[in-house]
């Protein structure tokens, strides 16, 4: 029971990342009809918003202490972060909470990047074949990751989580099980809750606002909405920006879990497309459901007992499920008739 609960929690936090990226992908596909292979790069750019913010506030001044020598005989360097020099104790707080705070930076940055990407490049490919869209967005993803590599280097850059959130929570004890048997890192629980909140917010935005209602109408019948005198293109552009923000926020909060590098987006991209296909092209609930489902399956497939029966199953389970789904339910779990069908 404890083992299953632990794997379930793990699947939920993994699934949170998959669902957030797949949600953005589906938003773009559902509104603009573009298969955006640069979406993983947006996740990576979000992560690097956190990296850039931290590097900015931890930029250090170096002073030499001539009274002490390093092991190689040079005066000892004393490094002090600029944020601490400027803001004192508040600077230290900024550094400690840099990841959550960088969300405030990531939202406008990702919105601008998303809109610029759509207006500057992708809009020119709306009437082109899906293959052209895939090629241009894949090329864009490579360009973006090379830009990040040129600026930040190729190595992963650690992003510490706030000291207060570094421990683990005794989930087992909370649920009445033996204390200490199911502990789970607090940040991973936060990541799951954060994912669920963002997903809830996106659905609420689409369901409960006039803007969202128009977008949904546009997704169902773009021409008719246009005939009614509504500038649906502008709304879809904003939705592209929103999808970029969702991917970016997923990236920001992911940084303490795995140190990001320029390749992070590509690592998630293929998985996310599988999630979208399993969930059903164009289906937002499908993307979310498939994200969590595949995260949980991947987690359970990594259990020692399962791997003992089928070695390597943890590496292929997601693709295996995708194959089965495509065979028995080609539209995906919640896919709609007519989407990407001729």
């Amino acid at each position, binding site marked *: 029971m*404890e083992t299953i609960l632990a794997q379930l929690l793990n699947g939920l936090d*993994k699934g949170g990342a998959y669902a957030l990226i797949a949600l953005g992908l589906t938003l773009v596909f559902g509104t603009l009809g573009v298969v955006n292979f640069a979406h993983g790069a947006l996740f990576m750019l979000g992560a690097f918003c956190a990296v850039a913010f931290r590097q900015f506030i931890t930029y250090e001044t170096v002073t030499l202490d001539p009274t002490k020598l390093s092991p190689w005989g040079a005066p000892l360097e004393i490094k002090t972060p600029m944020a601490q020099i400027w803001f004192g104790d508040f600077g230290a707080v900024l550094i400690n909470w840099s990841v959550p705070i960088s969300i405030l930076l990531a939202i406008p940055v990702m919105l601008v990047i998303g809109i610029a990407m759509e207006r500057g490049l992708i809009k020119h490919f709306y009437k082109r074949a899906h293959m052209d869209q895939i090629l241009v967005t894949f090329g864009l993803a490579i360009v973006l990751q090379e830009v990040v590599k040129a600026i930040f280097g190729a190595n992963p850059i650690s992003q510490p989580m706030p000291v207060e959130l570094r421990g683990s929570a005794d989930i087992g004890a909370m649920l009445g099980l033996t204390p200490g048997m199911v*502990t789970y890192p607090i940040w991973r629980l936060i990541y799951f809750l954060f994912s669920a909140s963002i997903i809830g917010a996106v659905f609420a935005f689409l369901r409960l606002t006039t803007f969202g209602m128009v977008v949904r109408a546009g997704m169902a019948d773009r021409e008719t909405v246009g005939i009614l005198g509504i500038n649906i293109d502008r709304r879809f552009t904003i939705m592209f920006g929103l999808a970029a923000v969702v991917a970016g926020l997923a990236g920001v909060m992911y940084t303490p879990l795995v140190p990001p590098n320029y390749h992070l987006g590509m690592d998630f991209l293929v998985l996310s497309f599988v999630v979208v296909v399993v969930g059903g092209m164009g289906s937002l609930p499908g993307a979310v459901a498939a994200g969590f489902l595949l995260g949980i399956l991947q987690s359970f497939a990594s259990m020692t007992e399962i791997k003992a029966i089928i070695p390597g199953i943890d590496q292929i389970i997601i693709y295996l499920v995708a194959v089965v789904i495509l065979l028995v339910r080609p539209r995906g779990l919640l896919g709609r008739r007519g989407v990407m069908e001729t």
Partner: protein
Amino acid sequence: MTLLKRGLTRRRVLQTGMAGIIGSGVAPLMFTKGAWAQEFCNNPTGDTVTLGFVMPLTGAYADEGADQQRAFLLAVEHLNGEGDGGLLPTFSSKVLKGNGILGKKVAYVTGDDQTKSDAGRDAARRMIERDGAIMISGASSSGVAIAEQALCQEMGVIYMAGLTHSNDTTGKDKKRYGFRHFFNAYQSGTAIAPVLGEAYGKDRRAYHLTSDYTWGWTQEESIKNATEAMGWETVAAVRTPVGAGDFSQYITPVLNSGADVLILNHYGFDGVNSLTQAVQFGLRDRQANGKDFQIVLPLVSDLMAQGAGEAIKGIYGTANWDWQLDDAASGAFTRSFGAKYGQPPSQIAQTSYVQALLYADAVERAGTFYPPEVIKALEGFEFDGMGNGPTLYRAEDHQCLKEVLVVQGRENPSTTFDVLQTVQKVGRDVADYDASIFEGELGPYDAALCA
């Protein structure tokens, strides 16, 4: 008989033959040391000799590769007589004078193996075929090192391995043209098991998470054998993909597995990630089987320790070398490296630097770049003054035999670099083993012509 019948005596035959030999210009080659003319790959003919350095500048071991590159460039500097000379003054062999190798200035080419075997092999091949490299050195992954070593054997170029810890490198995949200064997984097991038994007791249940390639497999096997021999039980050994990043799905099953020790057969960023994530999961705060849960990182470097931060405190591992060792050679290398780069050298920097010097020294002692003679100069070579104490390049498998360090993450580091402390130096006699316990053949000495 026929010749003699025509009036040719034995004396005349000998005289004629000798005159022909001298006349054809072969004699100088017969009586001159190093007379192998052009009959080997990339024989340097100009006033420079090119060495090829292949490192992981990207990928899971990129931190190691960056330090490896620093070390190689420093070695080239010292071989050419620039800088403070580094380990040249402390090295027991005194043939290196800082005037290049055999009077030729040392040039170099570098490449990124991306922590991938095929990329490493391609880079090494390019260096041999296009850049004329006479020797290849590098790698910080055993998979890459073994692939490059096999290529170098085929092409007749000596390979001085960087950080490779798999038993296979000088075991079943050993090659005549390949040499390893770094220690191996078998020696790690021999060194660390008694320390773990002393610290954690001899009644423990271990869970292994293992990088799924040659190094991980052999380290898992060696640590399992060594710990089981002293009474530990192995609960499970689970393979994980290299560069997985997020190891959480492999760590959660450990929680209720009945294990009370987690052994992480991971290196580089994988080691940093799996260790920090295991600590985040609260493993070190747990009790299992009535004991404090422990984590072991059998191969650890100071670069990993710096990356792991708080998580490394108290963690045991083994290392090839540490910059804080108090012998003259370690001090000299740390001063030289620190003055140039503003940070102390890591163990991969030390082994890479030493390998470059050992190759140059062997060429000088052989008096030629001809690989079979250089190989013979390295085989069975006893030396000291490189920071590892008295060391032997064993002829049977080209494995260096020297002391092994058991290290532990420091609880209260004084600087960001002061992250590991040596808790035991395991002597060369203890770390020694019979080369025949591993299969494999070194192969021929024959010098190939880059093909």
